[in-house]
């Protein structure tokens, strides 16, 4: 399989398992999975996933490319690492899910307004820019990335919560918090990007 692209029909692609093995971070360990389900059972937000990690991995083996790359499983992972800690076969579940999310965005499976992708991008923007996540900025950027109308609607709906948070000192007004060594952060991220490009 070359690079995957969305296809409408449900197909089984025998080469998908190999593609995941060769291209997804941690994919080479995927075949160690013995389908015990410790990952899915441990996942705190498994109920919100289309498929748990166990099933998703079996789908990869079966070549169910479309379902796997369009699933919300990889996007909903909060990187708590509980699955990684518990996996009896040492499969890096979190890495695989994270990279599957990145790959599905890259190959156009998360096109247009995509809740998970947009939130992740807003989150990363804040973290990479300030070295901190600012609730106000992340929320606003996320809401309005879904379109102006949708953003306004969601902002209004959450206004009461926001005021309440400010009143109780849970959210501050003013400049966003920033990390002290922003210069160092930028340099570190630049270096990371460089390494990624190199690979």
């Amino acid at each position: 399989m070359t690079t995957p692209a969305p296809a409408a029909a449900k197909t089984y692609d025998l080469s998908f398992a190999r593609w995941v093995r060769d291209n997804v971070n941690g994919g080479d360990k995927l075949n160690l999975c013995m389908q015990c389900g410790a990952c899915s059972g441990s996942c705190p937000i498994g109920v919100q996933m289309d498929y748990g990690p166990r099933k998703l991995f079996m789908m990869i083996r079966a070549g169910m490319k479309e379902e796997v790359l369009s699933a919300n499983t990889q996007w909903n992972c909060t990187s708590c690492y509980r699955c990684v800690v518990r996996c009896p076969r040492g499969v890096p579940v979190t890495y695989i899910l994270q990279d599957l999310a990145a790959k599905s965005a890259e190959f156009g499976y998360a096109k247009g307004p995509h809740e998970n992708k947009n939130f992740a991008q807003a989150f990363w923007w804040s973290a990479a820019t300030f070295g901190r996540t600012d609730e106000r900025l992340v929320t606003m950027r996320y809401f309005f990335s879904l379109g102006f109308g949708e953003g306004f609607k969601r902002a209004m709906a959450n206004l009461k919560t926001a005021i309440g948070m400010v009143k109780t000192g849970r959210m501050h007004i003013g400049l966003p918090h920033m990390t002290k060594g922003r210069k160092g952060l930028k340099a570190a991220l630049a270096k990371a990007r460089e390494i990624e490009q190199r690979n």
Partner: protein
Amino acid sequence: MSEKKPGVYLCKGCGISDAVDVGALEKVGKNEFRIGHCVVSDALCSPESVASMQKDVADGAVNRMVVGACSPRVMADKFRFDGVPVVRANLREQVAWSQPAHEEDTEMLAADSIRMAAAQLAKTQQPTPAALGEISRTILVVGGGVTGLTAALEAAQSGYDALLVEKSDALGGWSNKWSMRAPHAPPYRDIYGNDIEALIAKVKANGRVRILTNATVAKTSGQPGAFDVVIAHGGQEVTEKVGAIVVATGWRPYDATKLTHLGYGASPDVVTGIEFEAMLAKGAPVKPSNGAPVKNIAFLQCAGSRDPNHLPYCSSVCCTASIKQALQVVKGDKDAMAYIVYEELRTPGTAEEFYREAQRNGVVFMKGKATSVDGKAMTVSYSDELLGEDVPLGGLDLIVLATGMVPNSTNVDAPAIEPEKSEAQLKDDINPVAPIKVSGYAHGEGSPWPHIDKGVPPGGPILNLQYRQGPHIPILADGFSDSHYICFPYETRRTGIYTAGPVRRPMDMAESAEDATGAVLKAIQALEGGAIGSSVHPRVGDLTFPKIGHEKCTKCRRCTVECPFGAIDEDEQGRPTVNFARCRRCGTCMGACPVQTITFDNYNPQMVNDMIEANEIPDEFSEKPRILVLACENDAYPAIDMAGIARSHWSPFVRIVPVRCLGSVTLQWISTALQKGYDGIMLMGCKSGDDYQCHFVKGSALAKERLGKVGETLKSLALEQERVSFEEMSIADSCRAPTVLDAFAKLVGDLPPNPMKGF
């Protein structure tokens, strides 16, 4: 024989004197059996006591003894004196440890134990073995594959000559065809090169091994230590004297042409594991149809295995073989993908590590049953059990069917000998409870397991045994040779003939080599045992043998038919003749004999009869019923002993008589017990059936069969049928034993007393 001088030795140790009055037991010996020499010791197994017993023997004060102490299963080495028959009364495990102390019933039980032992001693003789003396120390190995080669080599290295007979023109068998082999040494992860050439060279270089290729066994007669084997070789027949035989005829792959539902034959790109192995041996595999390199390959496990329409069993090696082949593929070509479609992956033993290695190397395992195979489109559809849906694996280059092993327990190339007769015999032999086809026993119509009838393999016998019971080595339902797979796997039902390797059960090269080594050691034991007249497993070292009283024999032939080991032949006049070295000393012939004329020196119908009669039966008003338990000494008796060790208590009305095997139980004993006034009789022994645990294969099944007749007898005596019962008891059932005994005691206690009491 010189004058009998019996002695009674009683032990007070291990809590015996805390539970029973040992002085009263001494009186039983002195007053009832007139045994003057009665000794009581605080600890009979102490060096001082043993020394004094030795002195009594040396002084000529005693030349036979009753030892009333612990179970006969322990301290056998302490109470063994040259030329002195010793009978043990089990006062510890089955009295002191399992009954309340100093109760009237406990004292009665202890006294009865001594009575039974004294009665047993009166009929016990020191055995004079039937030694063959001059024997052949050559071991015949049939089959020149990895099992046969290892067997020949191991025999030679143990100092015995080996004669290796191979049907084909080359040694090595199937192993010659393997490109590589699965791991057989730590860390059990890597594929190894096929080292069969080295093994063949080693065997050829060994001066003790004589090799005959293009040779088969035409005829076998005789017994361990003295088999006469006729070998057909180069158009001639040569007779060889051998001491023991190892049958390593191996296996053949299941016929894949029957697997059209898995696409075999639809395309040259659907092959069996054996065919794929040949492709791998040539180098990187290519598609047979067009020579293109193989990039996507699917292995279908259980192809024709664990399938009621084909082989019902698991061949246990196909999973490992497919893993090996898949690893060879993915290691040989980084771009290749190997998919293994399996229902349950079975990688026994260390092969589990190999399975992980395959996962590490990217072999993809798909759990599910193949539902359809399109050999033209090269698509395998399987119902994935983990996804819960049907998944098509399309675009495959090669489909490999992992077919199972069929044992070569017969020579398929040879015609069946007297087809009708040998098939009937085969059916009887593979079915441990097959109806017995001689007069005298009630049995229903047909076989209780019709599927076994289908298991009769084609072809002629391998050894062509000139035995009363037919030319074949008995086989089990699936065609593998019959052996007691739990306790003594190499022993077949033909003593001195040992099956090893895949003819016994499916196994790989490493297991086969190990199996061959074990079988050769057993073969050596059998031929050396023949020389001194000693039995093989499970009664190793037993020097007794069945003696047939020809003056009483009615030539009914039950013993020759029922012997589980084919030890008894018939002479020209139809009289039974025992081949002593073939005998396992179970006593099944003794139980079969309607005129009780088969005896052993220390085990005979009269002896047990006397033991049963020796017990005191209280009258019908005493409310003390008596229950006779005839317990198999291999499993049931130890289980009861262990219950005693665990200090479990059971009914004090039970009297336990150990028997060699339930097969040795003659109905005479049951009628004696009923006439004597016992209220209930229980036969306790091993499981029978096609998953039997009987140490003598057919003993417990025969006992059950014979017991079927007792119901009628009881009815005619106006006795309740429940009085005679049969209980299966394995050695692991010790916690169940007291419950079983108590339940039977209650059942019998609720019946009116046996009206025969006091007659």
